[in-house]
Every structure is written in C-alpha cells, then in structure tokens.
C-alpha cells in the first residue's frame, strides 16, 4: 500500500457552547423526535389513510389494468377460430426464443395450398413480457393477458400451446 491512509477524525455536530447551548441542543433533539413520533401517532389513529391491500384475500376484486403484461395468449372466438396466419413475425421479434411457430400446409376447399399454424408454442418460463411480439403481430392474433400468478409445481407446465386443439383461422384474416 503506497497510498497513505488519511485518518479523518470522526466529528459530530459541535454543541452550541456552554451549558445553555447543551440544554438547547437537548431541547432541539427531543423536539425533533417528538415531531416524528407525532406523525407516527397520526397514522396510528387514522386508519382510513392506510392503503394496504389484503392480497390474496382480495383476489376476486383485484382489478388489473388492460395493458398489464402478464402472459401471451391467443384469443379464440366461439367457433374455435383464431386470427393467426403463421407468418412467424412474433418468433422473429422475440429477443430470447420464447415463441416457436410450427406451420403446416393445409389444402383449401378450392384445392389451393395454404400455410397455417399447426402449433404456436409459448415458453412462459423464458418470457420477459417485453411486448415486442404483440407489437409485431400484423393480424392481432396474440394479446397480453392480465394473469400474474404463474407458479406451478412442474416446469413443463410452463410450456404452453396457445392455439386450441382443432382450431382454425378466422375467415377473412390474411
């Protein structure tokens, strides 16, 4: 150690001087403590100003904002149809490989072949909720859900297939 250690004498606030100053300091110190205690007592007696939420007892009434990013889901309508065309824009936009789009080619009624999704695999355990896939999707097929209690016992349960079994693409979505 070539550098000299500079020993600074620890100092506190010097008393204002004499016995009078000492008593003044004690008075000021006690007063400052009482001011703080007054604030604490105010909240002790004013229960309505306390804003603690009783989670998880308030689960039913918990209202999360629409934009809350909890989990990626694919909405289906009552005919079990989704809007996903299988364009893989979300897969490209995702920074850490959370989404994997597995496509297949289906033969339409008029005999044409068309690309459609077989499975949209979503790894919740990798997802950072950055919202880039939702922004990238050209047909609004995927949205963010407001769920946030994601803990499960087995890690495999976090890998989800977003499209329902037997679902197909909505009419008119290109």
């Amino acid at each position, binding site marked *: 150690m070539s550098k000299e250690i*500079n020993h600074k004498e*620890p100092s506190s606030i010097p008393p204002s001087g004499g016995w009078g100053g000492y008593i003044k300091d004690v008075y000021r110190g006690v007063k400052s403590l009482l001011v703080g205690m007054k604030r604490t007592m105010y909240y002790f007696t004013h229960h309505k100003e306390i804003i603690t939420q009783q989670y998880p007892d308030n689960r039913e009434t918990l209202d999360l904002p629409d934009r809350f990013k909890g989990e990626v889901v694919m909405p289906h309508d009552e005919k079990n149809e989704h809007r996903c065309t299988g364009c893989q824009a979300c897969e490209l936009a995702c920074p850490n490989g959370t989404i994997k789009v597995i496509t297949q080619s289906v033969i339409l009624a008029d005999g044409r072949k068309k690309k459609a999704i077989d499975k949209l695999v979503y790894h919740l355990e990798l997802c*950072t909720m950055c919202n880039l896939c939702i922004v990238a999707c050209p047909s609004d097929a995927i949205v963010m859900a407001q769920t946030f209690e994601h803990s499960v016992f087995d890690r495999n349960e976090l890998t989800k297939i977003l499209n329902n079994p037997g679902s197909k693409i909505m009419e008119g979505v290109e």
Partner: protein
Amino acid sequence: MYRQTEIINDASQNPSLGGSGETGDLIINVGPQHPATHGVLHLVITLNGETIKKVEPHLGFIHRSIEKMCESLSYRQFIYVTSRMDYLSSHINNHACALCVEKGLQVEIPPRAQVIRVLMDELTRIASHELWWGAMAMDLGAFTPFFHAFRERESINDIMEETCGARLTMNYIVPGGVMQDLHPNFQNKVKAFMQLYKRKIHEYDELVTGNIIFQNRMKNIGYLSPEDAISYGCSGPTARGSGVSCDIRKIYPYEIYDKLEFDEVLETAGDSFARYMIRIREMQQSIRIIEQLIDNIPEGDFQAKTKAVLKLPKGDFYSRVETARGELGVYIVSEGGTTPYRIKFRSPGFSNLSVLDHIARGSKLGDLVAMMGTLDLVIPDIDR
C-alpha cells in the same frame, strides 16, 4: 468459500491483499448477503478496531454479460435488457438506448413522444428517489419511512402499470418514440399523484430530515471533495452533493429539456447529508417539470415511422442521459448490420461505488452504511 477463508487468514499480514502487516488488523466481509448492501455487493473491509482502513468492493455476483448479450440482439430487441441494469430507472435506461439508435438512424421524434418520454423519465426519477429515501432511512434504523415512501411510489407504479403494462421493467421507450400511446387516465392520475405528493412531502422532513439522530449520523460523514468527485468520475447526486455541476439535462440537453424550467440542485457541503438533501430537492424539481408538461402534451403521433428491420450505418454512436443515479452513457459501434458490433454502457453506479473506499477511510464501521446509502448503489447497474 475456501478461498475467502484463506484471504482472511493471510490478509492482515500480506500487503497485496490489503493488510498493512500490523497486528490488530481485522478483515471482515460485508455481503454478498447483507441487508445493508441492497443486493449482492461484497465488501472486504480492513478494520483497525472500529476504524475503517480499507474498503474493497468485490463485484461480479450478478454479472449477466448484458453488453455481450446485446451484440446478438437487434436494435429493437436489445432495449428490453437494459431495463434490467438499473432496474429503478428502467425508463431512463431505455431512453438512453433509444436515443443512441435514433442518432444512428437520423429519425425525427414526434413532439408528443418527446414529451411522453420526459414525463416518464421524471416520474421514474421520483419513484427511484422515493425508494432510495425509504431504504436509506431503513438502513439507519428507521423502519416507518420505508412504508411512507412506498405509498407514494405505489401511485407512480400504478400510473406506469396502466400506460406501460409493467411496474418495474417497462420496455416502453422504443427507437422512434414510445411503444403505446398514453392511457386516457394518465393525466388525471399524474395530477392526483402530484396532489398526494404535495400533501405528504412535509412528512419526509418531519420523520427523517429533521430528526436529530439522523442528522448526527449524516452530517460530516463521508466527505467527498469536488476534486475527488471529478477524478473518480462521480456523477449525479453524488457529485452534485460536492458542488460539481454535472446534470446532463442542463449540460447536454436531450429531448425537450432545454425548453423546460428547472434548477440543477447543488449542495456544497460534500457530506452524506448534502447528498441526501440533493435527492430530496431533486424530487421537487421533477415535480416542477411534470407540472409544466402535464397540461401541454401535444397531439400527434407517438411513434415516428421506422423500417421494420433497423440497420445502423457503419460508425460509432454515443448518447448520454441523466438517470436517477448519474450519467448513463451508451456507446454503440455498428458495422452496418442489424445487430450492434459492440455495445458499452457507462453506468453511473460503477464510478460512484469506486469512491466508497476513498470516503470511508478513517471513519467508523457504523458510518459505512450511511455512506453506502447516500451513494445510492444499485448492484445490477454496477455489474451489468
């Protein structure tokens, strides 16, 4: 852990490990699992009795190689990682990266996006300082202020949750503007927050600032001279507490900061109490900025039109912003492709931590907590 034991046994006799060779030196480890270090910071402290002779920070416990990760991500994707650096001012980190990419792309940001960005930055600054205030008081033994601070911070988090969809890692500021438009409730909620803040701010002074125990533990503790603040590369409230004018918002104004009225808060005492007062007063300046903007958000687009795949021209780009902790610099070297060739983050926490050894020498071990608290260390920002 075996290696650590070896250090402890030998260090007091070995000058290269920090010991002075004198008998009576004691080496203790604070952290990496210690409540006062606010994260996984490991300090090896050489003590003579109760007097600190040397503080040696050991880093790397939460190193995630963010700079290297960014090299494999595109210019839209890499911004989300930076929310994880200084997680208390994630908006401002995203802002710095977006500014750097925009500098390379040469895009004009719509005025609405600029105002939204500045509003979000200042809200984040208040939230960050409030968490610091609560944690700082808790380090010094006052538990109640923590809950008072979190009450106000909670209303900011609610605002963020409604507009950005997340409470901590927002990823809201993207190259070209912001990701989504403001929520319709945004203005009302911010106004309600400012009313709450003004109604409650005197409690901060009553509970902590005026408290005699707190003042005795802060005044004349951890003196940092302006020369040392500059030579160690300190920035933000740490340097401004020593009277060094270093507010990036004033010196190198970005976005619309040059059109706004606010003061650069400066204190000259250089001790822990000065650094404390800087942050308390800085919150009021942030409120002042929000007050000027909240009724004057211009109409228009919230995002400039950019290409689907961003490509920066060959060259290097640097941008800097003022986070809640100091100057954050983002340096991008581009080879013309879709991913950066190299990214370097100049994080404020790293430089501010380096001064800890200097200001702690000669003072008592109990004061180290007060010094660390006023440096406002966020460990993921230091390690990255």
